[in-house]
């Protein structure tokens, strides 16, 4: 295996694949930055270009592009509060808050470093998982996936404010998200649910218009109200110097970074959960690392841990998602599904062969992820000053540009005006929620996990009767879910207990 590892590195270091990787990185850089061009769509559009390439070159190009998208998507989220990609929305909560305090440089530095580490851990997981990947993925059946969705939903408790009232509001938001996930044709009876007799809602609510409306619109309104630049009145020099501080932040919280990266990798490996979940679970986990109620309140106002968590998870999930794609031909996300098309195009059959006969090719994929991320982070660091400087541009100059990107970004989901209506409606909802002090993260969690939970529950019951509840992994996951829900409650109780005896 070690020589395959070495061979993989040599394969990618030849000039042609390397050049293609650089081109891919360049494309991916812009794709991630601009909301509205999704990584998945671009991958599909790029597929025809690889017809004439050799496998190593083709994957250097595709993966080079794909690995970079999550990193640069973070940049847009932090600087403007607009999700650059559906998978980078969680980082807005604290990242953009930091930008508003004039700490854009620090947030960017932290996000980039966390992303890099996340990518490295994801790539390492991919490399190490090679021998155990098949039994690992095969253990996770529908009952386990259902439980995993429940664990994800349990994080709603962490994302809520403390106290009974806070929990109620958190679960109201989560419940709303779950209900919205039910919109569309159901896969059991084929009934059109909550479609309001429109064709648009037949296939359910698309994530991107909702996210863009929920997060970007309130930020734009707030920016207009403040009348200043994003960074307020903080002097420019201060913003730019923060980057190194951000990097140091990541190393001040090494275990959190690694844990969140592992969460991301794990979500990536389990096919069927989708890509958007990892960042929210990582964010929820990051908020749990607050040691007392005071720190807890800091989240959402610019705690750097809220940047590190999602940043790491987002990138590590990509390495993880490659595992089922390569080993089984089962894509872990939409982007992977398209990458799979690339496999077939090149005459490769994902499956046991990729882990034996073509092992060095597989490892070249691992190295591509590593190198592409290193290069991107290096480039971003060079551009960091200019990027952070954008937060000093007067708000009324930025707003029209952001709004145009928001509208286009939303519209390109379905090329339907209804996308814009959805964005506006959720813009209003998001604004009200922020005004009322309700957390928005649970809504997203509910929306993303609702259908998955329902489908896997039905499959589990149909297939295993009641027996699925007693499977060992299911019980372990149930325990984790209970722990996740109880953790904030225990924290709050302990906080009060400590205050009483202070």
């Amino acid at each position, binding site marked *: 295996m070690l020589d395959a590892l070495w061979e993989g590195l040599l394969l990618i270091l030849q000039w042609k694949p390397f050049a293609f990787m650089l081109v891919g990185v360049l494309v991916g850089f812009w794709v991630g930055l601009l909301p509205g061009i999704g990584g998945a769509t671009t991958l599909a559009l790029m597929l025809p270009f690889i017809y004439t390439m050799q496998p190593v070159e083709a994957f250097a190009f595709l993966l080079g592009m794909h690995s970079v998208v999550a990193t640069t998507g973070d940049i847009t989220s932090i600087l403007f509060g607009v999700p650059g990609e559906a998978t980078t929305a969680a980082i807005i909560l604290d990242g953009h808050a930091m930008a508003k305090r004039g700490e854009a440089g620090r947030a960017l530095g932290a996000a980039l470093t966390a992303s890099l580490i996340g990518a490295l851990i994801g790539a390492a997981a991919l490399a190490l998982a090679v021998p155990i990947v098949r039994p690992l993925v095969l253990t996770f059946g529908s009952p386990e996936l259902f439980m995993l969705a429940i664990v994800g939903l349990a994080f709603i408790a962490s994302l809520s404010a403390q106290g009974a009232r806070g929990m109620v509001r958190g679960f109201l938001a989560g419940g709303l998200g779950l209900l919205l996930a039910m919109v569309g*044709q159901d896969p059991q009876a084929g009934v059109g649910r909550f479609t309001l007799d429109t064709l648009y809602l037949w296939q359910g609510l698309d994530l991107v218009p909702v996210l863009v409306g929920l997060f970007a619109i309130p930020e734009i309104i707030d920016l207009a109200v403040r009348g200043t630049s994003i960074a307020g009145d903080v002097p420019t020099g201060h913003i730019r110097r923060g980057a190194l501080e951000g990097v140091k932040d990541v190393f001040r919280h090494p275990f959190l970074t690694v844990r969140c990266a592992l969460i991301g990798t794990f979500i990536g490996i389990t*096919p069927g959960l989708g890509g958007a979940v990892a960042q929210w679970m990582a964010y929820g986990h990051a908020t749990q690392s607050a040691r007392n109620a005071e720190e807890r309140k800091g989240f959402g106002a610019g705690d750097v841990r809220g940047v590190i968590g999602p940043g790491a998870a987002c990138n590590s999930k990509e390495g993880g998602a490659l595992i089922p794609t390569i080993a089984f031909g089962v894509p872990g996300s939409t982007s992977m599904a398209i990458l799979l098309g690339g496999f*077939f195009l090149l005459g490769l*059959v994902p499956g046991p062969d990729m882990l034996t006969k073509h092992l060095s090719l597989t490892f070249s994929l691992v190295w591509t992820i590593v190198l592409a991320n290193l290069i991107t982070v290096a480039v971003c660091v060079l551009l960091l000053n200019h990027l952070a400087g954008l937060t000093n541009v007067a708000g009324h100059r930025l707003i029209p540009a952001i709004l145009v990107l928001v509208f286009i970004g939303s519209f390109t989901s379905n090329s339907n005006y209804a996308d814009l209506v959805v964005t506006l409606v959720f813009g209003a909802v998001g604004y009200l929620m922020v005004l009322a002090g309700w957390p928005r993260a649970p809504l997203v969690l509910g929306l993303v996990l609702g259908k998955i939970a329902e489908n896997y529950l039905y499959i589990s019951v149909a297939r295993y009767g009641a027996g699925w509840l007693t499977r060992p992994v299911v019980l372990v996951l149930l325990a984790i879910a209970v722990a996740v829900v109880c953790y904030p409650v225990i924290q709050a109780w302990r906080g009060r207990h400590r205050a009483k005896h202070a």
Partner: protein
Amino acid sequence: MKRRQLLVAAIGLAAASPLALAQSFAGKTVTIIVGYKPGGGYDATARLLARHLPKHIPGGPTVIVQNMPGANSVIAANHMYNVAKADGLTIGTFNRNLPIAQLTRVEGVKFDMNKFAWIGSAANESTILAIRSDLPYMTFEELRHAKEPVVIGSTGPGANTHDFPLLLKDLVGLNFKIVSGYSSSADIMLAVERKEVDGRAGSYTSLRPFIDRKLVRPIVRARSTEPGIDQLPVDENFAPTPRAKAIMALRSTPELIARPYVMPPGTPAEIVKAMRDAFARAIQDPQLIAEGKKSKMELEFTSGEQAQKVLHDVFSQPKDIVEEFSKYIKFGE
């Protein structure tokens, strides 16, 4: 004198037509509207054609692809029928089951399949049912007499992963348990490996890699066939009544126009003919075939006239068969 003038005029017109057409396409952009998001089968086929059509359309226009997803491509079909202009510059491709959607009066359908200007179909599709190789059933007969229920995974009503085994279960009486809700057919294959389900139905093209890998073995097919599955028994032949047979036939009829391409109603006849010729030639273009082979896409042109005959088969079904059909099959994917 007059007759000769007319003859000359007629010859002149006939000779000028290709030139007139070349002028009408030259320098223009032809748009293929796909009723799905990028990355799926319909989209991939459209993009493959878009790359090779320009050489075969008189005037050599640019051909681009635009996606208009939503409602399983009903939105795209509605657009093609009601909004798109009939000037030959817009082509649409959508879900092959839309004729069934129209037949079963699905709400929201604002088109009439028969009135489209049909270019034809770019490929055929054959549906098969495959079960995991380690199961003891080697033939359809053995499967029929299975004592234990065979678990079949599906994505949801409307997809061939669901409908094909459903009819086998409800009409032919096979001992199936259909478990639906998987997010994609790839997820079902993973479930097969996990032994969570025992098999799945689907297009031969999508199941081929798994058959070659010996994970699953094909057992039965629908009426449309291709080399490799010719020898399989056809589901219709096991139908107990003529009505059941008609229902199964109705389900599989759209497979003959598996990648439909149309232009808006009212498109002038010469343009339609030019497009049909262009498609036929493009699909036989060796470069397209070579590219298609790489992505495991095999295109085969079925002309518009043939497509309309298939449509006629669908729409001439008697009312009671359609009603019975609707009880089993819901329009979905």
